[in-house]
């Protein structure tokens, strides 16, 4: 691993050295197309819907095509694009530079691909919205920020784009700002993210202080040279950086913003909560994975934590988040909220996999990254499918008020079914393979978490089958569900386009490709990709299959043919707790709000009386008083002036001639 990282870094430095315009500089175009389109819309197409759509979809699709070119040309090569000086401060020297490798090019394809389809879907979904052009503009801005995170070659630039994602997600979640709930949701998302970002920034400062550079290649090089370079702050820096991921990827205890963020338009949910923003945290962990391969070390004051590794903490937080969210999802009735908690749960999975990956004999986080890619496809598909359902049912979101949509919306049903099968880990579908990679990692690294992962997979299957059975089977339970009909082409075809990778992406050797990125000596386990899991680690694969079958049969046993949820009666208190998200919002409100109010009251008192009263008003008062008093000297009487003049001469004479 170390030798490999050193090799990487050397190559990175070489690539920066011999600059000049090259094909890899296309990455700049990939990054800036969406921004240019957003600005173009702002300047020229604030009213013209056709132009706005053309601009923004064109820009993102171009980015996608260029990403594809970069992927085809460079594959997994590590390349740095020509950087330019940004902040040439002594000791910091942050450049604006882009980095391309297997990880980033795959992520580029995911982000631009999903974004393109979401935008096309939105042309139909947002048809009647007065903020149509603004919507597309904000989406482009969001894509630009996200691409910046993906491509950044240093932590300062990464952080800037990290914050930009925060801002643009704020704009998107609060897109219908006239709704108070949307306003609250976007504030909540932004503030929660800020908490994580603060830790992230401290982490960046620690890493910078230890390594003397913010360039990621440079950090890899420094750690390859000396794994103890981070000193006593190694674990602390890792966890602080992870705080950033905790915010963006909605990990416990900062997970509360994600379900509320469903207040945004559904395509936004599909983009933010499937492929991009929430994936940013996991992606960042993979990008900075080198920080989690170092031995555990704590400052003297935290010595009692002993050999606790940052990666171990991360894997447990991920596992706990996954469990919590899966439990909550079982008793939600809002179609988007079920998907939201499912996203939370899957993100927990990915974070857990990254943490577990650090515990492998050859540290490798590729299982988490693999699941990120497949999840991006099928979760975007599920969100867009949910959007189609909501659109067809006149903005009804309660699954118990739907039913029987299978015949009325056959395309939506079919694609939604593909997405569900992928998510629940049905063999042949993408999710099965990526989940299997996680199971295999867990089995090797931490058997307790492996058990937890299987249980969560079981629950995932259960709640997703519940969703499909209640929504699409049986008979229509309300009038709006009865009058539903298939959505228009602009919404239908993106669903189909996403169903293809949801099914087939795992048929490509993507898992091996990603694993090879992190481990140059990695070699495939051979055999057909489709049966790879059984060749690689049969136990893990069989447990995956078992979880899938158990979940499906349980869901059918409980929900087939029901028009009311039988679980609340059976589970009682537990069901209510699940439905109320284990009262996290209430607990936070009870703890955070009074503390915050008290702090605010103290700050207010200080500002009002000490800073404002003594400081500002005191100083201005003294100055004003002095001014008014001195003015009395200027009587205007010439006798006084002459007297003072002469007195001044005497004083000066005393001073000068003493």
């Amino acid at each position: 691993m170390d030798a490999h990282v050193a090799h990487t870094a050397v190559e990175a430095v070489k690539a920066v050295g011999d600059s000049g315009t090259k094909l890899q500089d296309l990455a700049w175009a990939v990054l800036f197309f969406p921004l240019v389109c957003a600005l173009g819309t702002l300047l020229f197409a604030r009213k013209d819907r056709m132009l706005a759509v053309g601009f923004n979809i064109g820009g993102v699709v171009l980015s996608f095509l260029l990403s594809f070119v970069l992927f085809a040309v460079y594959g997994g090569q590590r390349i740095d694009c020509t950087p330019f000086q940004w902040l040439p401060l002594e000791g910091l020297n942050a450049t604006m530079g882009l980095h391309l490798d297997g990880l980033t090019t795959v992520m580029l394809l995911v982000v631009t691909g999903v974004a393109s389809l979401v935008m096309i879907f939105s042309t139909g979904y947002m048809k009647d919205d007065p903020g149509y052009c603004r919507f597309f503009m904000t989406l482009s801005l969001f894509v630009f920020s996200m691409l910046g995170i993906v491509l950044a070659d240093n932590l300062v630039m990464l952080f800037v784009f990290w914050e930009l994602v925060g801002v643009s997600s704020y704009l998107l979640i609060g897109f219908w700002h006239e709704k108070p709930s949307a306003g609250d949701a976007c504030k909540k998302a932004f503030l929660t993210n800020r908490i994580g970002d603060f830790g992230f920034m401290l982490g960046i400062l620690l890493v910078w202080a230890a390594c003397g550079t913010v360039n990621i290649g440079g950090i890899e090089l420094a750690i390859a040279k000396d794994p103890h370079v981070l000193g006593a702050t190694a674990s602390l820096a890792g966890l602080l950086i992870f705080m950033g991921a905790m915010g963006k990827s909605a990990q416990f205890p900062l997970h509360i913003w994600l379900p509320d963020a469903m207040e945004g338009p559904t395509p936004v949910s599909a983009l933010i909560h499937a492929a991009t923003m929430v994936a940013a945290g996991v992606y960042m962990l993979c990008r900075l994975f080198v920080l989690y391969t170092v031995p555990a070390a704590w400052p003297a004051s935290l010595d009692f934590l002993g050999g606790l590794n940052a990666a171990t903490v991360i894997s447990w937080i991920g596992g706990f988040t996954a469990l919590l969210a899966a439990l909550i999802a079982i008793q939600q009735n809002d179609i988007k909220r079920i998907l939201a908690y499912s996203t939370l749960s899957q993100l927990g999975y990915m974070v857990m996999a990254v943490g577990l990956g650090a515990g492998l004999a050859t540290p490798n986080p590729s299982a988490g990254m693999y699941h990120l890619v497949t999840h991006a496809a099928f979760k975007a598909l599920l969100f867009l499918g949910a959007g189609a359902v909501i659109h067809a049912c006149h903005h009804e979101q309660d699954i118990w008020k739907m039913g029987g949509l299978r015949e009325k919306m056959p395309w939506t049903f079919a694609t939604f079914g593909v997405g569900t099968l992928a998510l629940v880990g049905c063999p042949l579908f993408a999710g099965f393979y990526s989940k299997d990679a996680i199971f295999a990692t867990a089995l090797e690294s931490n058997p307790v978490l492996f058990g937890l992962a299987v249980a969560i997979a079981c629950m995932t299957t259960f709640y997703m089958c519940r969703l499909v059975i209640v929504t699409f089977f049986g008979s229509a339970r309300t009038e709006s569900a009865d009058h539903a009909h298939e959505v228009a082409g602009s919404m239908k075809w993106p669903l189909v386009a996403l169903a293809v990778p949801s099914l087939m992406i795992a048929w490509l050797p993507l898992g091996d490709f990603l694993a090879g990125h992190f481990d140059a000596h990695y070699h495939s386990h051979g055999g057909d990709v489709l049966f790879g899991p059984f060749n690689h680690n049969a136990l893990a694969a069989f447990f995956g299959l078992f979880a899938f079958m158990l979940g499906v049969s349980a869901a059918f046993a409980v929900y087939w043919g029901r028009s009311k949820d039988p679980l609340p009666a059976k589970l009682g208190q537990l069901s209510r707790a699940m439905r109320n998200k284990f009262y996290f919002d209430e607990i936070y409100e009870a703890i955070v709000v009074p503390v915050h109010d008290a702090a605010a009251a103290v700050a207010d008192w200080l500002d009002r009386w000490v800073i404002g009263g003594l400081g500002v008003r005191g100083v201005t008062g003294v100055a004003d008083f002095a001014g008014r008093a001195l003015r009395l000297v200027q009587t205007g009487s010439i006798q006084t002036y002459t007297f003072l003049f002469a007195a001044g001469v005497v004083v000066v004479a005393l001073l000068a001639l003493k």
Partner: protein
Amino acid sequence: MNHSLITTEILVILLGLGVLLADLWIRPESRPALGWLAASLLGCILALSLGALTPHDGSAFGGMYVLDGLARYFKGFFLLAGILVILMTVEFRHRLPVGLSEFFALTLFALAGMLFAASANDFILMFVSLELITVTFFVLNSFQRARLPSLEAGVKYLILGGVASAFMIFGIALIFGSANTTNFSLVAAQQAQLAANPVFLTGLMLVLVGLGFKIAAFPFHLWAPDVYQGSPAPATAFLSVGSKAAGFVLLLRVLFGAVPQITSQWQVLLMVTAAITILYGSLCALPQRNFKRLLGYSSIANAGYLLLGVAAESRTGSSAVLYYLGGYFFTVLAIFTVLCSLSSTIDNDEISALNGLGRRSPFLAAALSIGLVSLAGIPPMVGFFGKFQLLAAVLEAARLAPAFYVLLGVAVVGVVLSLYYYFNVIRAMYWGDAPAGVSLIEVSAPARIALLVCLAGVLYLGIAPGGLLRLADGAVAGLKFSPAHAPSVVTAAH
């Protein structure tokens, strides 16, 4: 003897006499044209004096008069000021019902006095040129004979100026009595003996009192607010630019030309004066409601800033003084040109009269804002860079005498206070409600040109200060600074 050195002065005096004579023959309506003519002829003199008229440095009249870098710098400064003040006067003519040509002529005579002051190398020539300036200003300040405040300003300037002159001439008598000469160079040659002579020191101190009056330094500043408020705007502008600069050039010549050794003993005195002058001017400006009176206090505070550079007693400090004066020149003249342009529509000088100027005349309001922002010392205006240079000189001096850090703090306090009172005016212009029933304000072409010249100066010198800075640095090359400050000064400062 080399009489050709004073060609510039002679031409300016001839121009003044010419204006007086021409007035006998021309019709009253064409008097503004006379101003135009005078201004353009002054422009020609300026252009010629830069090279053709007086190509060589040298001294004349037995060493009384010198022409060197410092003199050339200030002569250019004064001539340019004269041109702009005459243009300003043309703009101000509505408030000067009689004697417009005499106003031009007096301005030219005062200018001649300033030109002589820039070259003075003798206490006698210094006194004579200062009297030429002061006496003409007695008349200029009280020029609006029908207005009581103007008369009052003239009388106050007359009496206090008379007192200051009396002190100064008494001081010169003492100097002559103890040194047996009035020539700066000859005094400099024997300053080692003179430094211990209390009679000479008393005389020198009294001369400095007279110069302190010219630059409005504490405690000889009392006339400034009343005179600024009452005098006609062009006279005030010339007073605050020309007369102050004349005071400073003479101060530099006396302190660093004639008696650099004694000056280094008086550093604490200069520092205290600078500090109190800054604080006094800034604090008193805070409650002002009258704009011209505010400018009077601002001019006191600015004298304090300039004294910082003098107190630093270094080449950096003196060149910073020259640079600051150059920037101050454009800034103040821009402000007074706006006041003159307003004189035909707004009949008082209260700050509240400027309410809503932003809508009545965006150009004038913008020009005034830029001027005030520059005075407040905000980048990229020239005022910022001038203050920066002065403070840099203070910091440099602080390495030798830590007491300068106090001075630095005082200067910063003064700048902060100044932000308040300058922005108060800007607030009135843009956020104040215009009185009902007022119209847009027209700006005449000459005022527009004068303003654009000033604004270009303010912005250009702020963005590209290098040229003027090199010029200023070259100009102070002839001054002598006592190499090491006496240690006693440093301890005395604590």
